[in-house]
């Protein structure tokens, strides 16, 4: 590490000093800036999307603050410790999932929450990180690409928590857990033919699993295929969000002037469908800017992942980086009508608690894995 000791200009020195400060905090400057810009953008949109509710903005900012603190703390954890703790974390998470399924607190008609008195904890959210960690942990010491028995073990690692989550029922989170785990396997270097074969199996599994889906879940998928068929019911979300985005045009209707959002035609405007509010008020320009920021964060995260030398770190950070993009794509795809409505929030922008903390913890892990790499080498 030779942090710009060549140039002596004031600016350089200041930058160098902040970079050093960040490095000592085990943080990554560009990633932090990218995340901060998205969060700031999100807060500005939140004020409008919540109907000029300062309280919502403050709450959102508070959660963001909590997320940053979590990220900071997680970034300090040494990768070695993290790796050793992984099986414990995973098993604890699975046990909690079972507890939630059995005696879980009924929230929104589905059992997702565990009431710990002061805070309500969502184990499935926690598993979004624990599952790729466990996968990475398991594959860490095995030669890559993984052999078939190893692969089957990894699939079971993913399957158990994912199935428990879908049983809650929370299809969206269940799918995200699956994706996070599968991404680790893919990054581990699965052969193309195996990928194709598994894809075929997945298709059969999907056909089989269809009958096990709850009616509302089936409805969501069907409605995605033809939203107009039920304009006042399940299709209402998609229709209204497309109207919001489409009517925004290139430059948008202006901040706090989107009629779809402001007059509440757009459902869940400050949570899952906040992307449509941005599209309506800031137009294609606003959406493109947001997408650019997301791509920057994903790109930086991928870069950091490639810099790590350990298998566990590589697989985990690669999964975290791509999962982040998957979140973004699922949400934006859903809001713009490319994908079915599955209830995935827009990362760092949507109003909502646990997912924000999980995301920031993920980035904390990523930064930890990156910034501690020297120690591993030595």
């Amino acid at each position, binding site marked *: 590490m030779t942090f710009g000791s060549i140039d002596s200009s004031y600016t350089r020195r200041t930058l160098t000093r902040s970079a050093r400060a960040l490095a000592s905090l085990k943080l990554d400057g560009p990633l932090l800036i990218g995340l901060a810009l998205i969060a700031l953008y999100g807060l500005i949109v939140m004020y409008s999307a919540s109907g000029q509710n300062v309280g919502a903005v403050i709450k959102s900012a508070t959660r963001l603050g909590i997320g940053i603190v979590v990220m900071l703390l997680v970034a300090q954890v040494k990768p070695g410790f993290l790796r050793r703790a992984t099986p414990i974390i995973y098993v604890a998470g699975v046990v909690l999932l079972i507890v939630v399924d059995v005696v879980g607190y009924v929230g929104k008609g589905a059992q997702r929450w565990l009431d710990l008195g002061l805070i309500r904890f969502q184990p499935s959210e926690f598993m979004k990180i624990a599952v790729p960690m466990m996968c990475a942990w398991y594959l860490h010491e095995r030669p890559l690409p993984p052999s078939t028995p190893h692969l089957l073990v990894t699939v079971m690692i993913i399957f158990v928590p994912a199935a428990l989550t879908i049983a809650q029922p929370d299809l969206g989170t269940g799918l995200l857990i699956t994706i996070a785990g599968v991404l680790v396997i893919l990054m581990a270097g699965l052969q193309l033919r195996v990928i194709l074969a598994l894809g075929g199996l997945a298709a059969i599994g999907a056909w089989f699993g269809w009958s096990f889906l709850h009616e509302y879940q089936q409805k969501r998928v069907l409605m995605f295929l033809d939203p107009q068929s039920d304009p006042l019911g399940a299709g209402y979300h998609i229709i209204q969000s497309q109207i919001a985005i*489409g009517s925004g*045009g290139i430059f948008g209707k202006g901040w706090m002037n989107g009629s779809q959002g402001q007059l509440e035609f757009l459902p869940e405007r400050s949570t899952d469908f906040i992307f449509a509010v941005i599209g309506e008020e800031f137009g294609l320009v606003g959406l493109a800017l947001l997408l650019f920021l997301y791509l920057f964060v994903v790109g930086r995260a991928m870069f950091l992942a490639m810099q790590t*030398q350990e298998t566990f770190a*590589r697989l985990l950070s690669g999964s975290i980086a791509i999962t982040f993009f998957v979140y973004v794509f699922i949400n934006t795809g859903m809001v713009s009508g490319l994908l079915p409505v599955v209830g995935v929030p827009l990362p760092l922008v949507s109003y909502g608690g646990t997912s924000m903390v999980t995301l920031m913890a993920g980035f904390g892990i990523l930064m930890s894995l990156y910034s501690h790499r020297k120690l591993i080498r030595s």
Partner: protein
Amino acid sequence: MPANVRIKDHWKEQRLFERRAMAAGAIIGVLALVLFARLVTLQVVRHEYYTDLSQGNRVRIEPLPAPRGLILDRNGTVLAENRPAYQLELVREEVPDLDATLRRLSEIGLIAADDIDDTRKLVRSHRSFDSVPIRLRLDDEQIATFAVHRFEFQGVDIRTRLARSYPYGELAVHALGYVGAISEQDLGRIDRAAYSGTTLIGKLGAESAYESELHGQNGSREILVNAQGRSVQRQGALVPNLITVQPVAGKDLVLAMDIEVQRVAEAELGARRGAVIAIDPANGDVIALVSRPGYDPNAFGRGISRVEYQALLDDIDRPLFNRALRGTYPSGSTIKPAIALAGLVHGEVIPTETRFCNGVFRLPGSSRMFREGRSGRHGAVALVDSIARSCDVYFYDLASRLGVDRISGFLAPFGFGSLTGIDIGGEKPGLLPSREWKRKAFSDPADQVWFPGETVNFGIGQGYFLVTPLQLAHYTSILANHGTSYKPRLVTALRDPVSGAVRQLAPQKVAAISATPEQWDIVTQGMIGAMRGRGTAAATAGRNMTYTIAGKTGTAQVFSVGQTEKYDEKTVAERLRDHSWFIAFAPAEAPRIAVAVLVENGGFGSTGAAPIARKVMDAWLLKGGGA
């Protein structure tokens, strides 16, 4: 480590990971491009389409009801108006417990216990954020009651709205009608679109007949709404060009009625059941139109309770029944002037010739006796006298000489057996019997034949012949007018409430009856005679006349009592008494008013009905009405 176990090759694995990461990056790039393309499709290609949809989402059209026209009497006195009224309104979504709230409101007496179910239904039929009127027209005491208990009623409040008000209450209700909530039936006859925003519609009387004039044109206002349809006030770019169409106020009705004459007529009838109609013979203007008992039209605009309405329906005096237009009774002797005129026109009678009345009339070749109704025998009477003293025998004889065909044919142009065409609805045609009618009316061939004896009874207005009080008034005005006939009308002009411009409606002439002036004069003389000397009404309506009255009494026999079983003997006895009729016009030489009075079970025409007619004519003529 055993040799067959693959050894981790860190360098190779790093390269493998890098290749995978590159592939992932490429896939991410492709997906980002797909998403961007989707956004371009929505926001650039289909932008206009979605703009139209978003515009349609947020603009709603809200009706602006037009103020209903006033109803004025001929002197400009307001008979029906729109007054701000205090009403109790409820917003469902703000009420914690609707059932408990309604129960409590009924406990403190603001809504009737019987109306709770209906009120709940009414509230439920509106959107949850609509302010629903649950009690119209609160009086001061009720307002005070609510004010004391206000803290108990979240979501309930007193609001001020325009409501229909009839300052004279019961007075003239059967002429004015009333307004009430729009019913299913009403919806069939109106243009729903034109009535969106209107809550009350004219029922009966002038309110109903002139509904389209009174109603005006509702305006509309485009308002910005949110997804729940709730109106929102916002400034700036959200507010498109919202169009407002101002309502056009309904026309004011100017009635021919003189409310003072009407008041006198109703006061004179008092608690008795009956009807009074006064018409200006020169144009058919209805100066007074009374049917007693009446009811308070304000109750309907206020939202009449079930109990109140049932009480009106159950009342044995049938206050909702418009006797003036819909009550059909035998005419009694009031028809005699027309029979006399028929005799003259058809040459069946020589005015100067006398006929001896010994109190009994027999048809040639028949032993059946037709008796003088009242005063024994009149001795030798000529035509004028026969009218004045209402000699039945004279008219038995005249009728049998005329025959039923000529009598029916002559009476038809007076409006008997058909509608007079008055400008408010609901009148009955009565019954003008004829051979043809009898053939159709009866199924038994033996009953289908017209008997000569029936003609005899017809001559004194008994038998099948039925008239409404309105028809008799109309007939009287034709007598006064020497044959010229106008459709009776309540409304004479429409006034624009904004500009004040008045549009007079032309009187409508109908068929005339031709007779010579001398023949008219003889009949008039007979009717004048009734008010003088030995005339039937000389002692009652004819006393102390300051102008000449031409009148005729009548007594209609009652054959049965409707709804009998309910009443005790005394009531039945009272209700079996004859109906009392009186018709008159005055001044006889240049008539300015024609009156018909009916008093149900009022006994003789001279004592029951005649004094009322005199008071009505006094009220009109002595202050110069119609001059």
